[in-house]
């Protein structure tokens, strides 16, 4: 089915390929691709699958460490947590689908990252969600927030995986591009993990799970690889509906198949469905695969081959099975009432051949399909003028009491209970520290050890200074872990940026990834994997650059020692740990005052911050402190108020503090409490009473603070 070159170019452009890419395809194939082949190529050559704009940058990240068991390249990375146990984790975005249909988009985002985790043979034990929306004054933001949170809860709750942490920020630049990133952590016996490389010509390709419909045709992969403008209605995919019940069974089947050692390789079907998963399995294994579309169970009878190939129907997996084991595989699937079909076979051809019965529909060499896509060097240039307009001015007062109340009520700081109460955070009986009780979630493992996890990124600070802002995000995430006594084992990241073909976005991305690498090297944390979401732009401009950091660390002490945010006892001393030198630049207070983003952030002393982290971690591990909390958005006064509110206990600080010391932000500061002769840091005050008092500047009763802090309640009626 050949088409004239000009028609080919036109068809290819529709699918997001440039003319040069199309010419390259024709050259590499030595012929023109047919319709099915073009659909497949356009998907695998999209940014989402090929990382054509980000691969060179990602290759600069450090990916080795003594505890690393599986690094980038697999469905998830994994680290050793002792006694033969490993923890696999990864973060992924579902930004564009969530903007189209927030409930289903967020739900299927969770479904997708869960599959990545059980695809490596790990049982998902925790989800975290990292969300970004526009200012909550907008009706659309409130709608997105409400539906996204409901969607995440719907999927995670229904499948029995606790959602234990995450974050949410509200900033104007996310108004037209909300971010929905979900991270999942899984637990596995090291000897039961599996990779996705296909092997063994003659082995069978088995598709199991839900049937294949027109869901998300040309969806995530195409959408996530181009700017989504007005008048693109026709490109909108059929919305994918999440079915957590189907995924729960799919998960149990996958884990049982591995437990019984019945699989050669396993792979989830994510964006672009069969088209991305099957070639990647074959390519990793250096083999070929024949697929027979006539054997794919369809939800709708009249689907075209290319639709079957790129369908993004959820809750499906593919496995490579040795023929003698097929019967046992099908029996396990039947036990869980999961449909399974043999749809193909491993070959030695080095090609993906798509058939429908006898008819050959596509025949593409893997070195063209998977490895042929050109990799582009980014052209980076620091913007000569501000990219982001100033936020609206919301606060005039210079009275510290009013400022503190305004900060506590600010959507980026206010109590998040209205969100996280919609998530089951305790199922599976591992949750030692629930949302908001500590700076990181803590999970106890079967060997009695515990891990901690958190996600972080302050996009406004990254926008002000992509390099230092990203450094700070890694430090802040590690600081959260330190507060529960944990040291990072591995890092995952989600690079949410605008259009990298624009030099100023390329600059943000380049600087941010450089900082990520520097931070990881300085702290000796390997990058175990991650995800890239580019083209988050609208007519109003790009999002704040948002490299979301996810860390998993280990406690090494009694899990019960993991410190909480809440002050514990009347009379305990309060101390500040760290050479905390805050500034108001790009702070929450500066935002409330409508100040423009500064051109850069103060220099970050990573060494000093790491010393403070280590001190806090050690004090928590030895039980020297009764509480620990890092100083972040809103600065010292807000952090102190948070310790009080969590406890229902007041505190008194005698030292006079300037506005900058009270509300300024910067990395490397902590508030701890405990016996005066045991706690680290500079003692600044005492726990007790029913008011928060800071010298002459601040004196507010707890209930007044609590009222301000509950500002988000209004968003959920």
């Amino acid at each position, binding site marked *: 089915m050949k088409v004239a070159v000009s028609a080919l170019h036109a068809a290819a452009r529709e699918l997001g390929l440039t003319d040069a890419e199309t010419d390259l395809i024709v050259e590499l194939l030595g012929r023109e691709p047919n319709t099915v082949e073009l659909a497949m190529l356009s998907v695998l050559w999209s940014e989402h699958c090929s990382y054509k704009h980000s691969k060179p940058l990602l290759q600069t990240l450090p990916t080795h460490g003594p505890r690393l068991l599986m690094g980038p390249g697999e469905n998830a990375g994994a680290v050793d947590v002792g006694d033969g146990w490993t923890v696999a984790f990864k973060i992924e975005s579902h930004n564009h689908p969530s903007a*189209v*249909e927030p409930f*289903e988009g967020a739900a299927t985002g969770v479904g997708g990252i869960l599959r990545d985790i059980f695809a490596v043979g790990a049982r998902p034990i925790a989800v975290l969600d990292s969300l970004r929306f526009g200012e909550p004054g907008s009706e659309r933001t409130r709608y997105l927030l409400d539906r996204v949170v409901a969607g995440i809860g719907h999927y995670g709750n229904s499948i029995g995986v606790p959602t234990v942490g995450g974050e949410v920020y509200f900033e104007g630049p996310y108004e037209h591009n909300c971010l929905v990133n979900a991270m999942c952590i899984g637990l596995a016996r090291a000897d039961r993990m599996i990779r996705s490389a296909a092997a063994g010509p003659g082995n069978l390709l088995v598709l199991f799970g*839900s049937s294949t*419909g*027109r*869901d998300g045709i040309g969806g995530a992969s195409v959408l996530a690889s181009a700017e989504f403008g007005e008048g693109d209605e026709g490109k909108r995919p*059929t*919305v*994918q*509906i999440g*079915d957590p*019940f*189907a995924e729960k069974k799919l998960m149990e089947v996958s884990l049982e198949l591995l437990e019984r050692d019945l699989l050669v390789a396993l792979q989830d079907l994510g964006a672009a469905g069969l088209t991305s998963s099957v070639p990647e399995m074959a390519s990793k294994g250096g083999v070929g695969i024949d697929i027979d579309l006539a054997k794919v169970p369809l*939800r*709708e009878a009249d689907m075209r081959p290319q639709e079957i190939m790129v369908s993004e*129907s*959820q809750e499906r997996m593919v496995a490579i099975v040795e023929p003698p084991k097929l019967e046992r595989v099908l029996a396990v699937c039947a036990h869980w009432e999961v449909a399974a079909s043999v749809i193909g076979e491993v070959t030695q051809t080095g090609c993906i051949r798509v058939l429908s019965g006898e008819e050959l529909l596509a025949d593409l060499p893997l070195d063209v399909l998977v490895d042929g896509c050109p990799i582009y060097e980014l052209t980076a240039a620091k913007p000569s003028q501000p990219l982001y307009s100033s936020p609206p001015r919301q606060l005039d007062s210079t009275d510290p009491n009013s400022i503190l109340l305004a900060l506590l009520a600010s959507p980026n700081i206010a109590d998040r209970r209205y969100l996280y109460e919609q998530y089951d955070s305790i199922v599976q009986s591992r949750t030692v520290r629930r949302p908001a009780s500590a700076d990181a979630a803590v999970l106890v493992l079967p060997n009695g050890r515990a891990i901690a996890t958190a996600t972080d990124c302050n996009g406004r600070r990254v926008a002000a200074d992509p390099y230092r802002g990203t450094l700070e995000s890694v430090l802040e995430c590690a600081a959260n872990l330190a507060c529960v006594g944990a040291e990072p084992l591995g890092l995952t990241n989600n690079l949410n940026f605008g259009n990298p073909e624009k030099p100023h976005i390329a600059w943000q991305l380049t600087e941010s990834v450089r900082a990520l690498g520097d931070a990881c090297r300085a702290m000796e944390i390997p990058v175990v994997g991650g995800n890239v979401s580019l083209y988050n732009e609208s007519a109003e401009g790009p999002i704040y650059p948002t490299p979301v950091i996810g860390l998993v660390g280990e406690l090494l002490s009694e899990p019960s020692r993991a410190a909480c945010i809440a002050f514990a006892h009347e009379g305990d001393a309060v101390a500040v740990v760290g050479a905390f030198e805050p500034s108001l630049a790009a702070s929450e207070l500066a935002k409330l005052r409508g100040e423009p983003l500064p051109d850069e952030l103060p220099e970050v002393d990573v060494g000093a911050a790491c010393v403070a982290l280590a001190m806090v971690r050690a004090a928590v591990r030895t039980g020297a402190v009764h509480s620990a909390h890092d100083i972040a958005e809103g600065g010292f006064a807000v952090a102190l108020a948070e310790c009080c509110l969590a406890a229902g206990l007041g505190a008194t600080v005698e030292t006079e503090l300037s506005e900058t010391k009270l509300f300024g932000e910067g990395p490397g500061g902590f508030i701890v409490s405990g016996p005066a002769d045991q706690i680290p840091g500079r003692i600044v005050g005492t726990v007790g009473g029913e008011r928060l008092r800071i010298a002459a500047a601040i004196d507010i009763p707890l209930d007044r603070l609590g009222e301000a802090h509950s500002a988000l309640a209004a968003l959920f009626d």
Partner: protein
Amino acid sequence: MHARVLIRPKAGILDPQGAVAERALGALGFDGVKGVRIGRLVELDVADPATLPEMCERLLANPLIEDYEIIESPA
């Protein structure tokens, strides 16, 4: 004016609830049941039935994934 709005998943859109109900009916011994789709029923009294389509588009249904049908009935 009393009205009923029947809201159902659009054709082609996955309906996991319908699939589970169909299987369950079969398991209970009800033979020959097919094509089960589960949606929502909204019943309401409206002063001006002409506004019903707009209500559906804006709030009651999600036009991206659902079709709706308005049935007016005096009562």
